[in-house]
């Protein structure tokens, strides 16, 4: 009875998130408190209580992830401000501009780098602000241009240090275990991304237009047409004045600064340096190579403060996820949910792949298998109930992460990329989901092969 009450509350939570009646983070906090109360937790007390365990201990449970998010956001902001990301895209477009597929593959590579530094919409912006209009300008269809950035940042996800820390904290496995799985997931995601670009480019062909885009800032707000190739919409010296301003703000970064995205991952993988110092070294490298000495301190501080804006939404979400994890790990919740989840969870490896492959759509639209939402609670139940070994749950959630990171039309990166390319997020989902679904199935097979055989 308790189990069904908890599942009913979870269903209500999904409904609240799906219908956007409550922001995901707020819904998760309410869900945590409700689950704890249903599971019989006292309101106060040191052990297993709503206020002490769920709210007080749950809030900082993912603190390491939050620090990594802040540092990753800082590095991403710095890469944007110093022009490192835009220079990478510019060079790729200049080298491959006559061949749209080559440009798309190049932007895909840049997006992988950006996705390995930071996640969500900031990663999409790093690669897409210049990359999406540049791809469209050389003939890549808009829906493929958006999808290219999305599959790129998702392919970078297995290398993202923040993601390693999150999965380690949320699932309760060492970072080395996360690394072990994600390094094997990475080539699968890259192959899936390349397949998307090459097949969709062949299927849809190239597209050139005579078009004028509405200025980004709206009427009279104008920064001129973004991607359609129209001349500047403002009068007089508008175009060149703004171009000069942008040049001052974001000129080409020197070639050696372009190595910034690979510094943290090289340190973490090659020298086994922990995540925070690896990210800090990347920050110092970007500052030293791309910023003038006398501007270094001010640039560092300014970009750090700006990065709080970028980092705030995921940090709030991770505070709520920590509470949810604390709630589903309460003894009463584990005792109630384990028999139900055991009964419905597939036991044979073949069924594991088949059933969870069918359930892939449940990670879309903030569904119950979204690890950055209720999926964290599901993962907690699967582990605390002893249904699967933690590395297998890690593989399951990382595989689903490939789908929701690209195809979920409610993910901020999907919404931003699609709208920036001038297409609806749902169109982007339809374009990418056959490929991300296949990547997820491959990830499930990998999970079985590594941890369940």
């Amino acid at each position, binding site marked *: 009875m308790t189990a069904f009450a908890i599942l009913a509350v979870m269903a209500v939570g999904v409904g609240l998130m799906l219908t956007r009646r409550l922001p995901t983070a707020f819904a998760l906090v309410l869900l945590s408190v409700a689950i704890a109360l249903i599971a019989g937790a006292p309101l106060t007390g040191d052990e297993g209580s709503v206020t002490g365990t769920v709210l007080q201990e749950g809030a900082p449970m993912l603190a390491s992830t939050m620090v990594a998010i802040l540092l990753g956001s800082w590095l991403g902001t710095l890469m944007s401000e110093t022009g490192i990301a*835009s220079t990478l*895209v*510019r*060079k790729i*477009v*200049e*080298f*491959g*501009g*006559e061949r749209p597929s080559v440009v798309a593959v190049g932007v895909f590579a840049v997006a992988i780098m950006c996705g390995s530094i930071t996640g969500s919409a900031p990663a999409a912006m790093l690669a897409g602000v*210049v990359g999406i*209009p*540049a791809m469209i*300008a*050389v*003939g890549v269809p808009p829906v493929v241009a958006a999808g290219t950035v999305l599959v790129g940042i998702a392919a970078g996800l297995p290398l993202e240090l923040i993601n390693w820390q999150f999965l380690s904290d949320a699932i309760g496995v060492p970072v080395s275990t996360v690394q072990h799985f994600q390094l094997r997931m990475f080539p699968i995601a890259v192959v899936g991304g390349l397949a998307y670009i090459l097949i969709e480019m*062949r299927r*849809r*062909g*190239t*597209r*050139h*237009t*005579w*078009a*004028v*885009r*509405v*200025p980004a800032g*709206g*009427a*009279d707000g*104008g920064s*001129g*047409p*973004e*991607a*359609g*190739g*129209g*001349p*500047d*919409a*403002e*009068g*007089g010296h508008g*175009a*060149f004045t703004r*171009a000069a301003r*942008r*040049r001052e703000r*974001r*000129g*080409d970064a020197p070639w050696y600064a372009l190595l910034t995205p690979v510094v943290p991952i090289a340190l973490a993988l090659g020298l086994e340096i922990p995540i925070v110092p690896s990210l800090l070294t990347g920050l110092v490298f970007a500052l030293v190579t791309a910023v003038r000495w006398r501007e270094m301190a001010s640039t560092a501080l300014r970009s750090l403060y700006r990065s709080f804006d970028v980092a705030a939404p995921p940090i709030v979400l991770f505070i709520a996820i920590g509470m949810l994890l604390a709630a589903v790990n309460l003894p009463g919740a584990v005792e109630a949910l384990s028999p139900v989840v055991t009964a419905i969870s597939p036991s044979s490896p073949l069924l594991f792949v088949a059933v969870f492959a069918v359930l892939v759509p449940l990670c879309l639209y903030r569904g119950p298998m979204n690890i950055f939402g209720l999926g964290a609670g599901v993962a907690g139940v699967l582990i605390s109930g002893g249904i699967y070994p933690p590395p297998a749950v890690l593989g399951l959630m990382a595989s689903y992460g490939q789908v929701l990171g690209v195809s979920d039309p409610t993910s901020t990166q999907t919404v931003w990329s699609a709208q920036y390319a*001038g297409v609806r997020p749902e169109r982007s989902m339809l374009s990418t989901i056959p490929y991300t679904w296949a990547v997820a199935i491959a990830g499930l097979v990998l999970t079985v092969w590594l941890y369940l055989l």
Partner: protein
Amino acid sequence: MSAPTSGAAEPRRFAPAERYAELAALGDVELGARMLAAAPTHEGRSPERLRAWARTAIAVGTEMAGDADAAGSGAEARVAESTGGLRRDEVLLAEYRRRARGGTVVLYTDALDYARTVAEAAGWAADFPREAVRAAALDHECAHRLLHGPRGRDLRRRLDHTAAAVGRLRVRGHVVGADEIAAHAYAHRRGRMRRSPLLLTAAVAATLAHAGPPAPAAPASVPSPGGPA
């Protein structure tokens, strides 16, 4: 109730008359350079460099049109007409879709009508008659088709942009947006238009910047506000 017929009645439907006059005073090279300045990847380029590239692209487009005139060739792609060119964030006049099995040019009649309405508002109705705008759209996309072949390589060679250099070794780079200017110049020459379609594109852009996107409903029936004719 009769529809308003003056700019004062609907001040945001079109750009101010002086804005159109300002654009009309610019030459094709300057319009092309401004188009390049707004294109991605050119944020750091000097105006002189952009003007030089615009000049070259216009020359290549004009030569392409001359060759096409001499050969008597025209659009070889399949042509289709459609509505839906007036979008939430874009006015799409025409597009060329190139696939392995052949290309298709799609003309968006509602957007072409809208462009024509903008031309009327700017006082350029005689320069951009309805049929000329349609033909320009067709020629523009025909130019894109041609630029996929040796003409594209010729354009790249003549733009002579160095993407990377190590000692004497030089890698020639692609100039985003140059093909667009060449296509406008091609359409200008092929249609023997009095003014370049670059000016019409600039006017549509100015109108969007001033008034926002047009409503996607029968723009042909939009009354002329009595522009600066």
